[in-house]
């Protein structure tokens, strides 16, 4: 008998023993050897940072990233991500079934799960959370919009104490991925809900920032024990947590999780260097300094990781630019392809990101094993001679005295590049693009604005070329408003957007490849078969790579610095519901 068979039978025996031993079914967190995860030991305090005081402790009452970071440690959803593969795994739901027509989702809840105050978790909590909070249009951070398909509502109902069922008006394969919403305790929040007789908007007033910590109850690895305004949020281990490690030790390992409120990024780094913070996510600009200190023997490690999430920057040309000649040129795929040859990705990765970035995908991150199609070849190479030739072929052969190409109307080929001035990467990137474009006779004027205004400026249509970034997601369906022509965020071709929310986009103005992409997204949204969806999205990525609605530039790596005292660090970008490796962290 080979050793692997032995191991496997031992494993089967062990799981049988566990299953027979108790009604409770903890989730065993295993299989992360590739991420360097080992069995840890209990105890210790881990200190993280928040950029500002959380505005409330009710995740659905305010839209606040700082609260999100804390809430992520206190609440769980029905499903969650695998930390390595980003596949969906059981969380509060132990298993689920999807009807063959893709319309009925039945979640079997994990038995024996308790809230941090000892009350039992059950189907009532789930139905309560969805009905009164997530689907409540008055909840400020609810998500009612996602529970209507083609104008028809999704229904949620309790089947029995441990079963919840969702009925959709049509198939929606991304639905499962979305069910990472944090589930809230009915026994604590009912009085703020419509079920409890309150007005719909009153849910926003639950758990204000001065709430008694014992009121904030969750199923997550930690529970709230203290909140000092402007200074610190303290969480303690939830002894009722439902996960165990490979050796059967209860998670989380840590006794205490602290968040210090530090607003200034420089002050955050100073506190990390002083040893008052145990982990900090840093930018590429801060990398060399910290790495140098690490090499010189400082007691921390700087870790690079190619995570799926994170925003890859791109440049877009405004198809609807106010200048008609520019608009026509920007809409011409030959122009966008020609200009891609003047985008020096390698130099940008080297100098702007200090080498801490890779080549981008087209709408899908290369780390995304489920959907990424290798389009590296379509990115082309940096070749100014080829760009010159391609621009000549477009008829832009005449040049003025300054060497700038002349448009058909005799004006020079000159336009604005809008970029964010308060970013560590955009200004340098914009300068590189400007200087290389000048070498092929294209004059770019830099127009700096605040990074927080990039999206609204993009959507206003008042720009010619823009440098911007949107986040990658595990499933392209979740980024449909960005990449589907006519979507609310497809702002480089705004004239496609429907006159009214939810209306049909302006098909007549779509290029034929845009129509293809539009159809692909519509089909993929309702195709239950995973392989068929993958094939559809592969076609989309190729169409994207060839037609360049936007020109992706690079995929930045994520960088974290962590104190050597701690083990099992897995990079955690920020608030990604269903992606929380903190329970695995232990103090050596």
């Amino acid at each position, binding site marked *: 008998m080979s050793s692997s068979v032995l191991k496997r039978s031992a494993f089967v025996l062990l799981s049988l023993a566990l299953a027979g031993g108790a009604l409770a079914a903890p989730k065993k967190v295993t299989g992360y050897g590739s991420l360097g995860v080992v069995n840890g030991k209990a105890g210790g305090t881990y200190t993280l940072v928040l950029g500002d005081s959380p505005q*409330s402790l009710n995740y659905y009452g305010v839209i606040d990233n700082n609260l999100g970071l804390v809430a992520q440690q206190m609440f769980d959803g029905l499903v969650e991500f695998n930390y390595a593969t980003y596949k969906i795994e059981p969380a509060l739901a132990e298993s689920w079934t999807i009807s063959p027509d893709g319309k009925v989702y039945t979640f079997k809840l994990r038995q024996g799960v308790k809230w941090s105050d000892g009350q039992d978790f059950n189907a009532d909590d789930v139905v309560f959370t969805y009905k009164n909070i997530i689907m409540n249009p008055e909840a400020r951070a609810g998500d009612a919009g996602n529970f209507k398909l083609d104008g028809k509502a999704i229904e949620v109902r309790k089947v029995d104490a441990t079963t919840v069922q969702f009925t959709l008006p049509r198939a929606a394969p991304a639905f499962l991925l979305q069910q990472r919403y944090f589930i809230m305790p009915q026994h604590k929040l009912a009085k703020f809900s419509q079920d409890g007789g309150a007005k719909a908007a009153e849910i926003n007033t639950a758990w204000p920032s001065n709430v008694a910590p014992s009121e904030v109850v969750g199923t997550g690895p930690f529970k709230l024990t203290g909140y000092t305004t402007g200074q610190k949020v303290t969480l303690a281990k939830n002894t009722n947590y439902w996960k165990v490690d490979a050796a059967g030790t209860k998670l989380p390992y840590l006794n205490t999780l602290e968040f210090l409120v530090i607003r200034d990024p420089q002050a955050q780094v100073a506190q990390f260097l002083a040893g008052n913070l145990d982990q900090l996510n840093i930018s590429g600009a801060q990398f060399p300094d910290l790495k140098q200190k690490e090499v010189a023997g400082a007691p921390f490690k700087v870790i690079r990781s190619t995570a799926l999430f994170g925003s890859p920057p791109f440049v877009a040309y405004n198809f609807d630019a106010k200048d008609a000649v520019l608009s026509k040129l920007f809409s011409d795929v030959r122009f966008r392809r020609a200009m891609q040859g003047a985008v020096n990705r390698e130099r940008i990765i080297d100098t702007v990101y200090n080498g801490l970035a890779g080549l981008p995908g087209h709408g899908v991150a290369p780390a995304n094993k489920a959907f990424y199609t290798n389009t590296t070849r379509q990115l082309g190479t940096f070749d100014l001679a080829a760009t010159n030739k391609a621009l000549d072929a477009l008829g832009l052969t005449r040049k003025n005295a300054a060497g700038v190409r002349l448009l058909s109307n005799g004006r020079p080929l000159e336009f604005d590049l809008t970029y964010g001035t308060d970013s560590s990467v955009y200004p340098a990137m914009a300068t590189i693009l400007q200087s290389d474009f000048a070498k092929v006779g294209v004059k770019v004027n830099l127009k700096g604005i605040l990074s927080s205004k990039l999206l609204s400026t993009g959507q206003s249509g008042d720009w010619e070329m823009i440098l911007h970034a949107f986040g990658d997601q595990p499933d392209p369906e979740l980024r449909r408003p960005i990449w589907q022509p006519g979507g609310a965020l497809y702002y480089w071709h705004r004239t496609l957007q429907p006159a009214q929310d939810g209306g049909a986009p302006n098909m007549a103005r779509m290029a034929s490849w845009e129509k293809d992409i539009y159809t692909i997204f519509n089909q993929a949204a309702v195709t239950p078969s995973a392989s068929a969806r993958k094939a559809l999205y592969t076609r989309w990525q190729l169409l994207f790579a060839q037609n360049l609605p936007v020109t992706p530039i690079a995929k930045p790596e994520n960088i974290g610095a962590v104190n050597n005292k701690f083990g099992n660090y897995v990079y955690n970008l920020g608030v990604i519901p269903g992606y929380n490796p903190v329970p695995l962290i232990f103090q050596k």
Partner: protein
Amino acid sequence: MLTFAIRRVLGMIPTLLLISLVCFVVIQLQPGSFIDQYLEDPRVTRETVQSITRQLGLDQPLWVQYLTWIKGIVTQGDFGYSFVNGRPVSSLIWERLGWTVFLALLTLLVSWAVAIPLGIYTALNRHGVGATVMNFLGYVSLATPDFLVALLLIALVLGTGGTNVGGLFSPEFIDAPWSWARVADLLAHLWIPMIAIGLEGVASLMRQMRASVLDVINQDYVRTARSKGLSGRAVLWRHAVRNAINPLISLAGLSLPALISGTIIASIVLNLPTIGPFLYDSLLNKDQYVAMTLLLFSAVLLLVGNLLADLALAWADPRIRFE
């Protein structure tokens, strides 16, 4: 004196009403609105934005918003609620007031205690080496912004292997109950903000004091006192300094509003839990009732500071009467 104080307090009411109106108008003139940040967030649907606008009463006409706010203050002492935190403004300010007052009073006391003797010393030894050095340092600290001093001090502490690089406590003491160890930890952190925030005050107070002392020591009454044969020390403290300090009392009264807005950047850099950054955020977010209340509060402090200064002046200077 009591009637004087009461008259002054009553006189403040119309002034404050006018100030509240100005604050409201200024906040409204600022471009954008609280709702904008949601419009820009791809996660938020337009329906949600509409319901938030309605919940916050931002769909009401401006004059209704203003009158509702004023009515709440007058009839119920209710200063409105924070859009960002979904809580009454007064409780939010209250939470942050303790450390703000503590830090402000402490810096004020320390800078007075350091600046007054230095001012007198530099005035009396105008051409000495010590005074020249002091004056030079005074100029430098006047010219250096407080946040820069804070950053330099942080770099200094880090460079020497220290761990107290901001905040008022080490992490483990932030929410610990009071104990000697906690006081020691506080003191170990306190010197950085004291120096960073207090330095500029020391320098300007020192210059003021120096100028007033120089002004006073050549006056007739000082000469008279001297000619009567009083000792140099008695002349200095009983006559010269007591008169020279008058302008500084008015100055102290005017420095009360600095409680709120005086140290915003230093507070951010040093991570101090004071009201300054709270005001800054509320202005950025257009959290209008918080911003208006803080501005109004600042105005009240200015008026109260003036009143206190007048009372103190009357006490210090017999020439001043209330008629």
